[in-house]
């Protein structure tokens, strides 16, 4: 089909409203989530970027003051697009939920006084995750005009991006409502939990995985995809982060690996440009090349494992300056160019 001039660009995730971003610790999932939010906000759209672990990773990524309990605009995107940020807090979510659905006046205060609120938000296992996913659900379903009803009403956010817990915990996090629905055989909790589960498993939602070209993060990506599938969560793309620029050609890499680079030639070249070609320096350069060749081989193997997953894959280059607000913009551009948003 020919692209229709004037319509929105085709992306790999058209129709998806909830993007959940996970990855092993240290892979940069927070910055990828931030970049994705910014990319989705192109074309003048409104996007909410939410974190659920209270780390303030979003405010640090965008270089804005720590996020409070309300949603604030943290970045402008192209053509009037906006990114809002929210650090989801379990206690605030619970109080809001109680107020919204039960209009608890004095009784709410009593719950607090009796330690019920603290119990639910910090002590009882599992409840936190119920509240955090519940708040995300609310944000996805919210209407721009809160009185508007029906499927035609404009949503408050065109997309919601969640900086989710890392791979080790994400499945438990996303599946918590399913467990809860089993426990609450009837009643309001059950229907609420079922609605959240239904949304998370619907085509409106995808879970993206961020990885590096290293063995452990790739293995966790593979394992997590299998676990997500097992609980019926829709799998999104794989973002390979911090991809190093290829500096040496394949021939040179192979020569380096075989120790076939001439030390004398290197020394002579260095001397030509007035670099003191000590033995230590020449040996060092060759060692670096050998280590690099080894790493490149490992990275190729990992890239193959990722390719075998058969998921849309995006590659983000390593930013030598480290990631700041400008780096996020650069990453957003790259993701858009590759069709993720």
């Amino acid at each position, binding site marked *: 089909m020919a692209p229709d001039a004037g319509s929105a660009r085709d992306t790999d995730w058209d129709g998806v409203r909830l993007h959940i971003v996970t990855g*092993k*610790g*240290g892979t940069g999932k927070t910055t990828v989530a931030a970049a994705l939010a910014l990319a989705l906000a192109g074309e003048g759209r409104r996007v909410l970027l939410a974190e659920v*672990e*209270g780390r303030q*990773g979003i405010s640090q990524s965008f270089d804005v003051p720590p996020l409070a309990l309300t949603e604030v605009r943290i970045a402008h995107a192209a053509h009037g697009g906006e990114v809002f940020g929210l650090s989801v807090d379990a206690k605030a979510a619970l109080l809001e939920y109680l107020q919204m659905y*039960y209009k*608890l006046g004095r*009784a*709410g205060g*009593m*719950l607090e006084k*009796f*330690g*019920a609120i603290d*119990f639910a938000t910090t*002590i009882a*296992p*599992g409840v*936190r*995750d119920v509240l955090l996913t519940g708040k995300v659900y609310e944000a996805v379903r919210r209407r721009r005009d809160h009185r508007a009803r029906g499927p035609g009403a404009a949503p408050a956010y065109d997309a919601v991006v969640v900086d989710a*817990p*890392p*791979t*080790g*915990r994400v499945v*438990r*996090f996303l*599946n918590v409502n399913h*467990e809860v629905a*089993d*426990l*609450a*055989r*009837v009643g*309001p*909790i*059950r229907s609420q939990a079922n609605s959240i589960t239904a949304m998370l498993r619907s085509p409106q939602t995808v879970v993206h995985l961020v990885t590096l070209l290293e*063995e*452990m*993060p790739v293995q966790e990506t593979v394992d997590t995809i299998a676990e997500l599938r097992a609980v019926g969560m829709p799998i999104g793309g794989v973002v390979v982060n911090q991809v190093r620029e290829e*500096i*040496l*050609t394949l021939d040179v890499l192979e020569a380096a690996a075989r120790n076939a*680079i001439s030390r004398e*030639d290197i020394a002579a*070249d260095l001397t*030509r*440009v007035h*670099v003191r070609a000590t033995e*230590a*320096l020449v040996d060092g*350069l060759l*060692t*670096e090349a050998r*280590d690099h060749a*080894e*790493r490149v081989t*490992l990275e190729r193997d990992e890239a193959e494992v990722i390719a075998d997953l058969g998921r849309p894959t995006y590659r983000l280059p390593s930013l030598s300056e*480290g990631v700041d607000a400008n780096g996020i913009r650069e990453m957003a551009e790259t993701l858009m160019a590759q069709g993720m948003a």
Partner: protein
Amino acid sequence: MVPVLDIDALIGNPQTCIIVCCGAGGVGKTTTAAALGLRAAESGRRVVVLTIDPARRLAQSLGLTTLDNTPRPVKDIDDTRGGSLDAMMLDMKRTFDEVVEAHATADKAEQILANPFYQAVSSSFAGTQEYMAMEKLGQLRLEADRDPDNPRWDLIVVDTPPSRSALDFLDAPKRLGSFLDGRFIRLLAAPAKAGGRAYLKVFSAGVNIVTKTLTKVLGGQMLSDVQTFVAALDTMFGGFRKRADHTYALLSDRMTTFIVVAAPERDALREASYFVDRLDEEGMPLAGLVVNRMYRVSAPGLSAARALGAAEELGDQERDSSSGVGTSDVSERTAITQGLLRMHAVQAEIADRHESLAKRFIAGHPGIPIVEVPAASGDIHDLVGLRTVGDALAGQ
């Protein structure tokens, strides 16, 4: 002068009985714990390594195929100095089951284990892991102490759970304690106790309001299930409380020491800072910081800028000497040298960045002993790899 974290002195000190490794996810915490354990064992300590991470990474690096909540001996270590190494992975459900079985009557235990709330809490809910990690640490400690003349272990190395915040592990006993001392648990446990409700009524007039509200929010059935569950566990709570307090005391004891693990990245070091401050606040003994994956160049003395400049100049010289017009390509040989120089420049830049991140941490936390572990080109798969990490930890 930055003090160096002397790992060998730490593991060589018989007073060191527990080492807790903490830090952000993905910084090599588990590998550090395993390498420390191996090094200590091969220097003659009797070591058990407790890992809590669900991805069985420690198992891989220790060559174990199953880690099943029971410490298993690690084979092929060098035991010529009389040491031993056991490793285990926390199975939170099994640990919880064991606690129930040990502290409740057979009837009651059966009733608890079959309760759907118990099953969800013990196997699928986040947050249980921290409590059970504490429990397991306490158990290992008890087991180690069983025969003081011939202890099964004299060093426990703990890898902390991959929590929202690594501090959850530290906070777990206190949170549990505050709940167990609070009014809410009495309200939840009340229906099962004879006269419990009457007692509560005298105690507070708010009980009815709270119960009514909970019924409204949770539904009557769910509330009564929760209450049955809490009431069933009630007999064990005292024991939980006592052991959690005991384990917390153990953590602040002189025999325990914390090692904060980080990688030379902004986020990981920020978390490390936070952790260092918290340990200090709580009066917990901190041995120092391990910065893993420090990038180092093999060719010293050549800066990134100088290397790039030299690569450019090589190209210029070649073009100047060639007479033909449009021969912008350099010879194959020059291309190789240029490639090596450019690659060195990239690596030198990363190394510089890592160094300056580490320096910034040091400046912000003067006096904290540090050891930097160089980045390896591949992953750790075996004892040989762990030994290399151990050497690096010891500054060798």
